[in-house]
């Protein structure tokens, strides 16, 4: 029971991070119908920017930790958003209207380019960070096994819920969100009502990148170890989460992220840690066999 609870906490934390990255995949897919395979790299860059900012601030006292994290969050979100904007500008906008395969190849190319760019400028070795947020609660103890919930885990889950709420509100309640949904459903008609479709798509990349930066910061703080290659696996996991939950659906991305995180945590807790990816992907295959649109995805056929 204690062990189960601990893995549940770990799984939710991991799942929240996957969910944050998955939102970027699902939003971009929704609006241009294309998987942005460089999104994992955007997340990795977000992690590097966050780490760089924290190192630049230098050692801070316990009271200033919150401020330091907020500052790192702000800097990482803004700079990573700029990368997201440039990515769209350089790699995707010129290919608008080109066959989808071209955009896909461009995405993979950008992914490799960004990985190598970080490897060259930051070095291939892992970067480490001393834990900024230490400590936590011990929820229960039994036979020497402690169920702990760290402050960092609370921070990750709270930040994810807050950001998800904000983004859901932006998309459902604001003019920008309405324009995004319009572009998603019919970009020609969106232009005919006066929406600047290119700008709306760019803003979608910016929003997705900002969320990936948050995930990058969380991972940096949570694990304290990053390198130029973390975007690849996390990207594939988050992409899986987005497909799992139903690509194009934001609640789906969060749900998919949580489920992937939980499957991984429980599988590595009860069976074998080596096969956790196999478990996650196998369950994805099973879900897609019976629900090809994912858990919360909508069927393709639409009465128009």
């Amino acid at each position: 029971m204690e062990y189960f609870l601990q893995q549940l906490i770990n799984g939710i934390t991991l799942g929240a991070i996957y969910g944050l990255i998955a939102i970027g995949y699902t939003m971009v897919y929704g609006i241009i119908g294309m998987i942005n395979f460089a999104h994992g790299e955007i997340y990795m860059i977000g992690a590097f920017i966050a780490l760089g900012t924290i190192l630049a601030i230098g050692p801070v006292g316990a009271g200033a930790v919150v401020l330091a994290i907020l500052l790192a969050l702000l800097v990482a979100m803004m700079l990573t958003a700029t990368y997201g904007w440039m990515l769209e500008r350089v790699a995707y906008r010129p290919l608008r209207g080109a066959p989808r395969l071209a955009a896909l190849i461009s995405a993979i190319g950008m992914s490799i380019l960004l990985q190598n760019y970080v490897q060259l400028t930051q070095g291939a070795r892992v970067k480490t960070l001393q834990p900024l947020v230490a400590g936590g609660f011990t929820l229960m103890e039994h036979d020497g096994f402690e169920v702990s919930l760290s402050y960092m885990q609370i921070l990750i889950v709270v930040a994810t819920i807050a950001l998800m709420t904000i983004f859901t509100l932006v998309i459902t309640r604001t003019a920008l969100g309405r324009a995004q949904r319009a572009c998603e459903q019919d970009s020609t008609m969106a232009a005919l009502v006066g929406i600047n479709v290119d700008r709306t798509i760019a803003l979608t990349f910016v929003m997705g990148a900002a969320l990936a930066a948050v995930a990058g910061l969380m991972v940096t703080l949570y694990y304290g170890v990053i390198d130029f290659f973390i975007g690849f696996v996390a990207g594939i996991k988050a992409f899986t989460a987005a497909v799992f939950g139903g690509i194009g659906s934001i609640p789906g991305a969060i749900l998919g992220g949580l489920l992937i995180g939980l499957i991984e945590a429980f599988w590595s807790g009860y069976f074998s840690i080596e096969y956790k990816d196999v478990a996650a992907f196998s369950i994805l295959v099973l879900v897609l066999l019976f629900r090809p649109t994912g858990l919360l995805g909508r069927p393709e056929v639409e009465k128009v």
Partner: protein
Amino acid sequence: MLDLRGVETFYGHIQALRGVDLHVGEGEIVALIGANGAGKSTLLMTVCGKPAPRAGSIRFQGKELAGRSTHEIMRTGIAHAPEGRRIFPRLTVLENLQLGALTAAPEHFATDVERVFTLFPVLRQRSGQRGGTLSGGEQQMLAIGRALMSRPRLLLLDEPSLGLAPMIVQHIFRVIRDINETAGVSVLLVEQNAYHALRLARRGYVLVNGRITLSGEGAALLDNPEIRAAYLEGGARSDKAGTGA
């Protein structure tokens, strides 16, 4: 108000418009008739810059539109209720209208929505419903309502009668006349229903294979034997008038 001179439009290598000259005056209703595939919808979309014309000029209220992007053109006072209505299917009726009002000043929104709901009362009942769940007639009303929300000076309407019951068609045509007479909105109307269109319009143009072949007063075109044969008396079979299909 709207002046097209020598407009040529291509889809890839296929030429859809071959040097079209067309004029819509201030406060006028102008009908554009022609068979399927003649290029009527293309003409309206070319005015909106989607696709952009490859040659010729499109002037609206003295300003050149050719070469400008669609979202800029739609901010000059032109609104389009396009072919197939293109309602945003997963947005509510109200959200569709909000998007229509995107280029209008926000303070007009309440009165403009009220006006659309007065013209098409059924939209008020449906305002919280998703666009994709409306019937064809309701979607057409929404498409016109959405176009009106931008307070256009020129309204482009692509086959508003297509596939609708005669009573709804009458309602829609009455609204078009009303918009034109009370608000002074100019209308460029594309129709296969040539009889309705030419009775409503002051002037008309006939488009065949991307060229304007005839133009004149609506009433005169209605009496023209060629038009009668081709578009009014089941004349899609007539080869002489060039159905363009």
